[in-house]
């Protein structure tokens, strides 16, 4: 694979990591983590590791994101309610 594509991919990876780190909205961060996982899976596929790419795509972008969303939806709403009460 060409070097320029690799550079593009890695810059994108670092950018998504920075977004995950900096953004305040947890839901957006979780979605960005899913994107990050897919990009990482692409990088693994380019590095000639098909097994790892498959696992990364299935586990990190599938199950882990689903668990994050469940946990987030469980914790997010009462927080809003309590903020409304405070206001």
């Amino acid at each position, binding site marked *: 694979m060409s*070097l320029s594509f*690799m*550079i593009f991919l*890695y810059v994108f*990876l*670092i950018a998504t*990591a*920075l977004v*995950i*780190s900096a953004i305040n909205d*947890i839901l957006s*961060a*979780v979605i960005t*983590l899913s994107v*990050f*996982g897919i990009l*990482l899976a692409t*990088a*693994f596929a380019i*590095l*000639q*590791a*098909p*097994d*790892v790419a498959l*696992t*990364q795509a299935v*586990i*990190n972008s599938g*199950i*882990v994101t689903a*668990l*994050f969303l*469940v*946990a*987030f939806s*469980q*914790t997010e709403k*009462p*927080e809003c309610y*309590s903020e409304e009460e405070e206001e």
Partner: protein
Amino acid sequence: MILLSYATAVIIFCIGLYTIMIRRNLFKTVLGLALMESAVLLIIVSSGYIPGGVPPIAPFSGPAVNPLPHAFTLTAIVIGASDIALALAFIVKLHRHYRTVDLDRIRGLRG
């Protein structure tokens, strides 16, 4: 090119560690853990790459890449996923008591 992926992995590792250190939201902590784990995976997979290699599935049509790091990475991905699942379960349980995921407002045990 392979140094590039090492550099990327190290940068992502440091971003993850920095996130864990300064962010006060528990979800951010877990996201930071996920970033650090992904960075270590990228380092391990890159260490097996050789220029012009083919995937390690016989019969090889050229020089195959090192298969051992792939096996480690598979193991590490699953272990990391179960760690993250456990952390999320703890957060959900703690949220029932504190009604918040902010570390500064969860301070039952200090000192």
